[in-house]
């Protein structure tokens, strides 16, 4: 593998697009929530403002090295996921660095950021951080089960674990998407997405009214800015993963934006409707209904 400046440039550009699209999506989401409540809501550029404001705050405190590294790990997780995710099919350069590893790499790389964040906020020493993390990890373990079942089902279906190959196999028309060819796995996967994006009813991790926003309680100013940046990237990238897995991927940026928008808003719509689960409820829920779909997905393709 030799160094390729052009690829690096494209990747950085892609990162920029993803970041801004992520911020815009969160803006739209909040606006939407406001309109549901008959408010005017935030201005559309508010996320950028908040980001700039947070980066511009002057005083910072640090609880120690790991507290400092936590956000780095976290955004490393998001950016790394982006790096190993093929973004636009058909363009060699927009595939980023996905030739280094397959779906398994992506699945396990999610943990990178999570672990870093957990450790960082752990060093903050705040009890709510620890409670939030313990809930987050608990919930995460079960979220991944239907997801894994869906991915294995896909791997059986497409005979590969390579995300690029899976996307390529879905090209050539609307009817080739996994959504139609393997609907059960898609349902399992989309259930899992709900948890992964941690919107209501699975937003117990941050639970602002209960344990002041959970893990990032102690994070502020620049650190918080980094975390916000990561959130924007991560949400788009996760949506992109589901897009690639179930909805035929994207052949251009417009398609990318359209598809990620709808995938992301699936969780928003659900979140508007359902109240929050307690942790043991959400754990048990993921091991019931989505699990059944996941198992079904494998049985159907075995």
């Amino acid at each position, binding site marked *: 593998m030799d160094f390729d400046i052009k690829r690096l440039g494209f990747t950085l550009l892609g990162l920029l697009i993803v970041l801004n699209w992520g911020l815009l999506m969160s803006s739209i989401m909040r606006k939407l929530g406001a309109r549901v409540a008959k*408010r005017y809501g935030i*201005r559309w550029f*508010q996320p950028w*403002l*908040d980001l*700039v404001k947070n980066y511009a*705050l002057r005083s910072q405190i640090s609880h120690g090295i790991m507290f400092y590294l936590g956000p780095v790990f976290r955004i490393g997780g998001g950016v790394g996921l982006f790096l190993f995710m093929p973004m636009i099919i058909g363009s060699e350069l927009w595939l980023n660095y996905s030739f280094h590893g397959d779906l398994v790499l992506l699945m396990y790389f999610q943990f990178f950021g999570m672990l870093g964040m957990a450790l960082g906020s752990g060093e903050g020493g705040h009890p709510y951080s620890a409670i939030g993390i313990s809930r987050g990890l608990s919930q995460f373990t079960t979220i991944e089960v239907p997801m894994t079942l869906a991915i294995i089902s896909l791997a059986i279906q497409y005979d590969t674990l390579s995300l690029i190959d899976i996307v390529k196999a879905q090209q050539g028309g609307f009817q080739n998407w996994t959504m139609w060819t393997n609907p059960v796995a898609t349902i399992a996967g989309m259930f899992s997405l709900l948890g992964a994006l941690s919107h209501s009813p699975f937003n117990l991790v941050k639970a602002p009214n209960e344990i002041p926003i959970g893990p990032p309680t102690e*994070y502020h*100013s620049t650190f918080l800015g980094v975390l916000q940046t990561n959130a924007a990237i991560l949400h788009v990238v996760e949506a992109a993963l589901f897009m690639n897995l179930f909805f035929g991927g994207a052949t251009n940026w417009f398609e990318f934006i359209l598809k990620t928008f709808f995938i992301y808003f699936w969780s928003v719509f659900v979140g508007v409707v359902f109240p929050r689960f307690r942790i043991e409820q959400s754990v048990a829920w993921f091991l019931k209904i989505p699990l059944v779909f996941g198992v079904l997905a494998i049985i159907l393709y075995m």
Partner: protein
Amino acid sequence: MSETKNNNKFENPHYAKREVTGPDGKQFIVDPIKDYFSDERPKVYEPNSIPVVEKFLNWARAESLWVLGFGTGCGSIEIPPLMTPRFDAFRFGIQSRPTPRQSNVFIISGYLAVKTLKRVIRSYEQMPSPKYVLALGSCTINGGMYFDSYNTINRLDHYIPVDVYVAGCMPRPEALLAAFNRLKELIKEGKGEKANEYAANFDWYKENQKKIIKDWNMPDYNW
């Protein structure tokens, strides 16, 4: 000033010095105030040296005001309507945050008992700089109807710097919105530097605070 007042009568037993035996059997003294808290003094942070950049940043700060969700007195009941469709403070970039670490604006909503003042000081000091204080109601101005109470402060600005006072008992959300707009103007003009003022006059503020908080059992500045 640097010496914390150690009046035994009011000492919290948890913050008293204690002798502890380590796992290797050696004994040593733990002084919680010194060992568990940072004793660094606040700093005066200079604005960005490039005026344009500072102006831009001030604009961002002004348009993204995150309010600490801490209701100190009766006025805290006026804040929730602020977020409702009728007043909808979100459109001004205002939103509430549950932790002082992530907040910029502290609304002192009404009378302050001495006991509450201690918590207010702690929360205020935990907010990252630059930070702003909105003081609500006459109680924060001159004690209001509690002017002769044995336990309620009369003037907030002797204890923490106040950016905007809102008179009234209680001021309506409209008044609060007006105060926010005034605050925005101040910030955009570059006058939202009260945090630096607090740091610069730190000793004076501390003296005032310690005068009424008799059981002072925290470090001078709560980072």
